[in-house]
């Protein structure tokens, strides 16, 4: 079957539909959908400084490629990139080079912060110290901490991430499984329960695009160098939930869309419920914290013991 819009050879069949699109019609569809998300949820205001969190992988390079095209076209926001080097040998060192090349070629300012410089340790060495702890749970804490701190230092108005529909559906289900609804209240196309100047709001322009659509966009724009998976990826709870959701999606197409759409209906109530929670300042580092000390400092104290 040809492309639905122009009868050219298709490159993708969209999830949960019979619609097939060729290269140019798909790129148009993809960018229009991301732009609609930006407009609908007011993700980027005029003259804002948007810092894109990049890893050098297909999701973040697609995000940077899309935002760069948008900033050139609109000329009403400033774009730069922030990369966190966790210190994962044979993985991050390779994707850093890809990110550097991309930013150089496209004239985007790239800032790099590392766990080593921020905490004195690489993720590889932390994992060696705690072999029985899932690497992703420690990495997530430090990564979020550094992304927020560094983007605030860069005077970012927004921190854009490459999170897609699959990521969001996984987070919603993971929080359900763990009875962690307060965490779900922070999800959505723009994160956080209430505005606080210590937090740089995170925005997700690819919120309604599937992982397969992002990979297709990356491939068509020459952004996939070669497939590379994080060394610690298979350890995570997310990995298990991701496989469950992919199996469900195959059997019942549209499952992920339904999870996210249902969640968006109740999200305003969740935000309302949790908006009263105080945000403290960590007594060690001064960064925002839900208790006396922040999660990153709690972890760092454990590491130093």
């Amino acid at each position: 079957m040809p492309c639905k819009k122009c009868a050219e050879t298709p490159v993708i069949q969209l999830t949960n539909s019979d619609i097939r699109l060729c290269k140019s019609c798909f790129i148009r569809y993809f960018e229009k959908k991301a732009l609609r998300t930006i407009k609908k949820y007011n993700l980027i205001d005029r003259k804002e400084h948007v810092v894109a969190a990049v890893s050098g992988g297909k999701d973040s390079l697609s995000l940077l490629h899309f935002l760069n095209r948008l900033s050139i076209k609109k000329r009403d926001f400033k774009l730069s990139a922030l990369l966190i080097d966790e210190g994962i040998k044979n993985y991050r060192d390779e994707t850093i080079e890809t990110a550097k090349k991309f930013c150089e070629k496209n004239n985007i300012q790239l800032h790099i912060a590392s766990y080593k410089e921020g905490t004195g340790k690489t993720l590889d060495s932390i994992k060696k110290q705690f072999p029985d702890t899932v690497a992703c749970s420690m990495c997530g804490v430090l990564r979020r901490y550094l992304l927020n701190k560094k983007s605030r230092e860069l005077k970012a108005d927004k921190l854009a991430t490459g999170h897609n529909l699959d990521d969001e559906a996984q987070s919603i289900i993971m929080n359900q499984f763990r009875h962690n609804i307060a965490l779900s209240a922070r999800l959505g196309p723009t994160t956080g329960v209430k505005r606080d100047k210590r937090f740089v709001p995170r925005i997700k322009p690819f919120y309604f695009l599937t992982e397969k659509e992002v990979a297709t966009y990356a491939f068509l724009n020459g952004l996939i160098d070669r497939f590379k998976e994080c060394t610690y990826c298979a350890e995570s709870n997310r990995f298990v939930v991701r496989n469950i959701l992919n199996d469900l999606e195959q059997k019942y197409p549209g499952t992920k869309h339904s999870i996210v759409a249902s969640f968006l209906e109740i999200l305003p109530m969740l935000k309302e419920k949790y908006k009263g929670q105080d945000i403290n300042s960590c007594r060690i580092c001064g960064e925002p914290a839900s208790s006396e000390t922040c999660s990153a400092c709690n972890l760092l104290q454990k590491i130093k013991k």
Partner: protein
Amino acid sequence: MPTISLEREERIIKMKEVEIKEILKKLKINPTTVIIARNNELITEDVKLNKDDVIKIIPVISGG
């Protein structure tokens, strides 16, 4: 027989099947988790391959 390059496992195999849907089924690969390229062009799962075709099965899953 078409040649299949599995990017995740970094291995190349030959299969007698010519329908991508059948190839994925046989390899127990969920179609929602991959994209397929032939001569560096993406193709959909309903495409029938020629015997000399070489295709790449590329995982869409983020590296973390």
